[in-house]
Structures are given as C-alpha cells and as structure tokens.
C-alpha cells in the first residue's frame, strides 16, 4: 500500500526487487540481502494462505481444498485489483493535486476506509447472491472475502518493502505486515470459533431464567412450610339399594368443617366409547374457613390417594364473608382396582392453602451441597497431606545443589545395583510367603503391604550397601585385572537388562503404532535381544576401558530421572488422573484424592526442590566442616532454611487443590462438583446455583486465609 510513498533515488533496481517479490513473496528481500526477512515473509505468506484456505474449506459443508483454494485466489485477485486501483489513485492525487502532507495523510486514511467499506459491501453482496451452486454458497463466506482482502494488503506491502529495501538499503518498519497478519488471524479465529454475535444478542433472553436461578439461589437453601387447613367428609360408592352410607358430619365450633349430602352415591363412568355418565350429585356445605379466601376440593380414593376431580363441577370455591360456602359436585370417576368388590369409602377433602411460612431449616439441596463442600475441602486437604509426605523426600532428590556432589564409582554402582535387585527379589519372595501365611492379600491387605514395603526398602538398601562394599573391597584385594573384568562383566549385565527393556519398549510402544499388533509381537524378541546385546557391549567397554576408576555423578543421574518423572506427572492434568483414579477405585472422593495426590506430589516436589536449590550454601558448608554427615547437614542446614517456603507452598497448594477438587468432581471424583454436575444435568439450576455459590465462598475465604498465613511465613 505504501509502495510509492516517497520518491526513490534509484528507481530501476527497486522496481526489479518489487517485481521479484510480486512473483514470489519475499524473493525481492532475499535477493536484496535481507535473507532472513525474505524467508520470514515467505513462510508467513505460506502459513497464512494455507490457514485461510483450510478454514474456508472447513466451514463449507463439503470440504474441498481445491475448490476453496480456487475461490480464495479469485477473491484475492479481485481484492488485489481493487487495492491496485486505489494505490494508483493515491499516487496520482499525491503527484498532481495534493501537495501538503496533512492532505496526503487525509487521502491515505480516506482510501483505507474506502477499501474497508468496499470489502464489506462485496462480502455482503457475495453472501446474498452467491450463485446457484450450493457448494459455492457454502464456501463464499464473508470470511473468504475478508481474509483475501487482508491478504492483498500483505502482498502489496511486501512488494513495496522489497522495492524500498532494494532502492535504499534501508529497512522499513514491519508494522503494516504485523498488523495485517494479526488482523487476518483475528478474522480466521472469529470464523473457526464460530462466533455469532447476532445470535448471542437475539437469544440472550433464554438465559434469563437460568441466570436468575444461578445468581440468587438462596430461596432454595431453606425449607418453606405450607400451612393448610383441611376438612374431610366420607362418602360411600357405589350405593346399593337400601344403604345410606356413613353418617353425615356435624358442624364443629372452632374448626373448619364440611357436610356432604348424600353420603352415598354412584361414581361417574367413562365408557370405552368415550361416553361420560356423571355420578351422583353431592351438595358440599362448609364453615369456619378464612373469609374471602379460596378452598380447593380434592377427592381421595379408598386407597388414600387424593386427586383433583375433573369435569364434575367447580373445584376452586370462594369462601363468603362468614367463612362459609356451598357447592355442588358430581362424584368423579375414580379407578377402583378389579379386586375391590362392593361398597368403598371415599373421602372428600377441602383444603385451604393459606400461608407459606419461611423456616430456618436447611433444605435438602442445601444439606447436600454443604456435605459436598465439606467433602471437597477434605479431599483437597487429604491430597495435600499425602502430597507433602511423598513430595518432601522427592524434592531432596530433585535438588541440584544437594545431588550434584554425590559421586560413586562404577564398581560401587554395579555391585550395589545387582545386590539391590537381588534384595528386592528376596523381599518379594519373603513377602509372598508371609502373605500366604497370613491368608493372602485379600485377607490382610494393609499389613502385608506394610511388611512388603519395609522388606523391599530394607533388603534393597542392604543389598545396595553390601554390593557396593563387596565389589569395592574385591577391587582392593583381588588382582586388578580380575576385579576389573568382573566389574565390567556385571556392569554389562545391567546394561544388557536396560537394553532389553528398551528394545521391548521400542517394539511394543513405537513399532506397534505403525504395525499391526501381531506383526509387532512376532519380532519383539529380536529387538529386545538386539538392544540387550548393543547396550551390554557398550557398557562392558565403558566400564572396562573408559571409566573404571573414575567417578560417576550418580547424584545427577538420580536428579535427572526424578525431575523427568515429576515433569511428566505434572504435565498431565488432574482431570486425566481423575479418570485413572475412577477406573482404579471407582467414582467417588477417593478417586479424586488419588488424582490430586499424584498431581500434588509432582507440583509440590518441583516447588520444594526449587526452594532447596535457592538456599544459602554457607551453612551447608559449615555443617559439613564440623564433621556432620549428609543427614545431619540436611536437618541442621537445609531444613531450617527451607521451612518457610515449604509451608508457604504447601498452603498455596492446598488452596489450589480445593479449587481443583471441585472440577475433579465434575468427572466423578466426588465432592461438590459431583453433585453440581448432576443438578446441572437435571436442570435444577437453583440447586446448582447453591453449589456454585458455596464453591465461590469457600474458594475466596480460602484464598484470603492462605494469603494471610503465607504472608506470615515469608
């Protein structure tokens, strides 16, 4: 657009560069020496064009990239022609008519606005007369026109850019390019997210009912009692000859009363052909009701179920100023079970619903919501608690400053690893034996798990120490070559085991994606053995030749492993963990606790380890200098320093966990979210509003409390 803004000194090369960019966007810039700029323009051009065409194709009912591309380029050329026309007009105006700068700026903006309006008009007319083809109608959306129009601006800008760079070896501003790219992405984004403002405005009223209930649901929080006055009279039906039915009521002083005459009659009958025969007409007289109010007549069948009689007379009766009324009613049709033979006693009920009384009793919904809220808070608490227990030790393993100086020799690691594995297997066997003695895992799961844990940790550790010590001692006593070969051999074993696992993983995990399962399974042995062989040989050579006596920074290896695992666990959303938890232990708060605990361990582990990494190293050095061992250094130099940030992070995490647990409830993790999603699905928006309010109150109270506590510790 700005190609000819200023007269150029050196015309010929500038036009050449412009022409190059006209053919291929960015080419002129690249040849003029601005290679990065040129390639950037080219890439932007490709990406934006692709995105535009793709979007247009997506929104069509029959996605066809070729068709969309054709249409896009046609519209683009139209826009470009319009733009070129405007640029020429501007050039001529500036050259011959308008000489003062403010006038030129005015024309420029005028033309920009003209361009925008023209595009809007074109888009509108295209939309209304998009030809006869249904496909064309779908593709010829206003988005096509808008994006093609912006695209034309970008195109002309980069031509002018190339020309100017070629002419003066000076870099013009990227402003118009960035602006048009942003605008284009905005237009595409508007289309892709299917934003429809007119619809939002037209259909806003539909939300009013829901919104009103959600915003002020407090009436549902308490119980309302309906105080009603009832008077009853008994009527017999059917009425065989000679029977007179139950005795008539007498007026009672001080109470509402009704008298029904006669007290014996026939029911209305609706025959199969739809013919209605009304029953015996009753006269109902009543007194001692509230003057000026209305009463309602209900009919109670012999089983005791009341219903509104229909088609047999008025059922809403006004009361006169004396508190009395008289009305007529035919005995309605009442379904009597086939087994009921003979006369039955029905009841006429007159009910005066007078007042609705507010009580301080909580409604059922409110109680449910409160229980759910409590469950949610506790869920967050428990997840935080378990998270701390696991995150604290892990965080020490994931702190670079503590781990970086832990070194070990190959022989110590080899012996340690082998005997540690042996210890683990032994622990497994012993646990199995104890388990069968105690009656199996299902009998005493916790006891056996505890024994297993202690055995695994203890024997694993013992094996590690014994193995490291054993191989190191051997290295001192035995002939050097012997211990060297032995160590290298054992190290190669470990390497081979690792390689075997990697091979299996490659075969099952990666190849299985491409190949059918059976084919992958056929060859998985070969991959595993290949992996084992390669890593075994590499480990042997490494241990034997390269780094036999040297130290391995085992601490950094552990650090890297723990960090990686924590990063992966943290990267997976708690919602996904909740799904795992639900499959594991079924829906409910326990599943939510598992999900949050896993995520909390990783998140807190990272925060903790980072605060350990930022401590003052001086006290550590001082404690080491006094002869304290690693444990003592941690207790006396690290913990006092990291306690305040640990407490602060923990409370912060608790806060987060309570918020998250409401969301986790939505997918079945228990707590208030669980109740909330059910109410939403049952369209009980008032109850849902209660839950939302409780969540909002709890979270803000918690937010305040946690920030107050944290302020005190930092």
């Amino acid at each position, binding site marked *: 657009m700005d190609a000819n803004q200023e007269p150029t000194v050196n015309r010929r090369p500038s036009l050449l560069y412009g022409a190059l960019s006209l053919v291929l966007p960015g080419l002129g810039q690249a040849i003029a020496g601005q290679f990065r700029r040129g390639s950037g323009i080219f890439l932007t051009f490709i990406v934006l064009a692709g995105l535009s065409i793709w979007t247009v194709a997506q929104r069509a009912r029959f996605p066809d990239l070729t068709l969309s591309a054709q249409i896009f380029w046609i519209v683009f050329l139209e826009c470009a022609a319009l733009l070129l026309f405007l640029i020429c007009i501007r050039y001529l105006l500036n050259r011959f008519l308008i000489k003062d700068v403010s006038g030129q700026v005015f024309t420029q903006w005028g033309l920009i606005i003209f361009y925008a309006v023209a595009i809007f008009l074109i888009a509108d007319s295209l939309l209304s007369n998009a030809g006869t083809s249904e496909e064309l109608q779908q593709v010829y959306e206003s988005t096509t026109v808008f994006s093609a129009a912006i695209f034309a601006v970008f195109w002309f800008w980069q031509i002018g850019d190339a020309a100017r760079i070629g002419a003066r070896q000076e870099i013009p501003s990227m402003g118009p390019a960035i602006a048009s790219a942003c605008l284009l992405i905005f237009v595409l984004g508007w289309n892709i997210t299917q934003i429809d403002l007119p619809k939002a405005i037209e259909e806003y009223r539909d939300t009013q009912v829901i919104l009103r209930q959600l915003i002020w649901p407090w009436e549902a929080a308490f119980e309302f009692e309906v105080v009603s006055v009832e008077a009853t009279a008994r009527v017999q039906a059917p009425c065989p000859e000679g029977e007179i039915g139950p005795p008539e009521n007498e007026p009672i002083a001080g109470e509402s009363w009704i008298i029904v005459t006669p007290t014996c009659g026939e029911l209305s009958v609706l025959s199969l052909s739809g013919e209605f025969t009304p029953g015996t007409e009753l006269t109902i007289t009543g007194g001692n009701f509230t003057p000026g109010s209305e009463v309602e007549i209900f009919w109670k069948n012999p089983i005791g179920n009341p219903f509104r009689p229909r088609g047999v007379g008025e059922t809403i009766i006004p009361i006169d100023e004396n508190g009395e009324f008289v009305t007529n009613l035919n005995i309605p049709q009442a379904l009597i079970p086939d087994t009921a033979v003979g006369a039955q006693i029905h009841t006429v009920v007159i009910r005066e619903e007078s007042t609705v009384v507010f009580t301080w009793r909580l409604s059922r919904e409110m109680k449910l919501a409160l229980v759910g809220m409590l469950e949610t808070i506790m869920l967050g608490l428990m997840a935080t608690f378990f998270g701390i227990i696991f995150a604290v030790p892990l965080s020490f393993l994931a702190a670079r400053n503590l781990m970086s100086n832990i070194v070990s020799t190959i022989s110590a690691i080899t012996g340690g690893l082998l005997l540690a594995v042996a210890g683990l297997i032994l622990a497994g066997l012993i646990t199995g034996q104890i388990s069968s003695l105690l009656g199996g895992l299902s009998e005493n799961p916790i006891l056996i798990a505890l024994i297993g844990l202690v055995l695994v940790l203890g024997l694993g550790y013992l094996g590690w120490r014994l193995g490291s010590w054993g191989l190191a001692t051997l290295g001192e006593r035995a002939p050097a070559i012997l211990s060297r070969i032995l160590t290298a051999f054992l190290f190669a074993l470990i390497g081979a085991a690792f390689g075997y696992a990697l091979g299996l993983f490659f075969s099952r995990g990666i190849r299985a994606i491409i190949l059918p399962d059976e084919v992958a399974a056929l060859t998985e042995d070969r991959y595993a053995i290949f992996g084992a062989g390669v890593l075994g040989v590499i480990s042997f050579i490494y241990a034997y030749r390269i780094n036999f006596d040297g130290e391995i920074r085992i601490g950094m290896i552990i650090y890297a492993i723990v960090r990686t695992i924590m990063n992966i666990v943290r990267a997976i959303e708690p919602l996904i963990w909740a799904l795992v938890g639900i499959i594991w232990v079924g829906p409910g708060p326990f599943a939510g606790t598992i999900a949050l605990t896993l995520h909390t361990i990783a998140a807190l582990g990272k925060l903790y380890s980072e605060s350990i990494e930022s401590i003052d190293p*001086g006290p550590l050095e*001082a404690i080491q200098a*006094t*002869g304290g061992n690693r444990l003592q250094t941690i207790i006396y130099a690290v913990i006092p320093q990291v306690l305040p940030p640990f407490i602060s992070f923990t409370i912060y995490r608790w806060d987060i966990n309570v918020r998250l647990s409401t969301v986790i409830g939505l997918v079945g993790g228990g707590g208030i979210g669980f109740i909330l999603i059910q109410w939403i699905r049952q369209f009980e928006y008032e109850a849902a509003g209660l839950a939302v309010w409780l969540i909002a109150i709890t979270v803000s109270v918690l937010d305040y409390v946690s920030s107050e506590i944290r302020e005190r510790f930092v």
Partner: protein
Amino acid sequence: MLQIENLTKIYDDGTQALTDVSFTVEEGEFLVVIGLSGSGKSTLLRCINRLVEPTEGRITWNGRDITAADQSELREIRREIGMIFQHFNLVKRSTVMTNVLSGRLGYTPPAWSLINRFRKEDRVRAMQALERVGIPDKAGNRADELSGGQQQRVGIARALMQEPKMILADEPVASLDPVLAHSILGNLERINQEDNMTVICSLHFLDLVQRYASRVIGLRDGVIVFEGDSQDIRQLSDERFKEIYGEEAERLGG
C-alpha cells in the same frame, strides 16, 4: 603438624586455583595466608578439610593422610578441625544455641539428629563456649538478630564446640569493621595461646597480619610467593609487597 605437599586444584571450569603448593605448619602456630581475592586463599583452606577436593597433592596431619581418607574417616578428621567463615555461615533462622550445638554434630549419632537431640554435657559445653566468646546472654536469640561481630563470635563458639586441634579461619574479619576485627582476632589469638591450638587464617589487612601472625604465607595466582614470620612482614620492601599484591597495590597500613 600439618604437611601440605604439591597441592594443586583445578576447578571443573578449568580455573587453576592452586599450583604446586607445599608448606608445613607446626602445632601451635598462628599462620596467616595473605593474598589478593582470587589468589587461592579460600581454596587452600578448604582443601585442608576437603570441602574442596584437591586435584593433586597430599595433605597429612599428625600422620594421617587427609587426601586419602574415605567418607567416614574424613568426618572424623573434620570434627577435629574447626572452621570460621567470612560470612559466618550461621543458620539464620535457628537460635544461637542450635548454631553452637551444631558444632558438635560430628560427635552426635546421626539418628539423634532426627529428633534434634544432643548430649546434656554438650549443652553445658555450648554455654561455656558462648561465655568464652562473651555472649552467653544471646543463647536464646535467633542468629539473624545478632550484629555482625556477635555472629562471628557464634561462629567461633561453634568451632570451639568441636574441641578442635586446629582452626581454619577464612577471612574471618573481612565483613567486620576494624574495632570488631581486633576483637575477633584477639579471641582467636587467646584460643591459639591458651589451648596451644594451630590457627590458619587468611587475612587482607597488613597491619592485622603484623599484629597477630606468627608466620605468614603469601599467595599470588595460586603460587606461594612469600614465606616468613611477622618480623619479615614488618621489613617487607615495597617491591616484595607488590610481588604479593600485584603491581597496582598500594600500601595501606603500618
């Protein structure tokens, strides 16, 4: 007797901090190491108790080879060598008492530390150490409530708790004003003379060196460029002085 033979330290990043340093320290000496910052004083002191692992060379102390010691032996050697730091290296949030007691960790079973337990006589000894450095009334205060001079006294008390046979002091007065410097070095001198304890101390100021040292070693770029007693330091010519401190150095003190 501490013997250092051909000590060389090259850090992982390739910095050559010490080159072939050899000297001997007799028991009861007050040895001062002088040199510009970056000359290798701190590295030298930290190599003696292996807070920094020497790259090459041998350090023997009373017949024990410190450089060859394994972890548990090293801890036993370390608890007999007290150390005082330029920035005191106290745990600021812990009480003075806990900081002093932590000097006793080398003698305390590690499992006791899990419940913060010390022997009763260690607590008595800690009070005595605080009395000896003159701040018994600060025992219950948090370490960061104390002034710089007081914090360094806590550092000395912590070192005394080790019942050391040698004290390494890494620029113990560099963060303090001159009056406090004299008071802290006076403390060290008293310990040196009363207990006949070996003190190896790195210092910046020449007048402090002249006042307290019984022997002096000058380091420049990790090489020993000067060795003598305090008399020699007094008679140091400007040329020798510049050899230690570099061309741009000016003589400040006495």
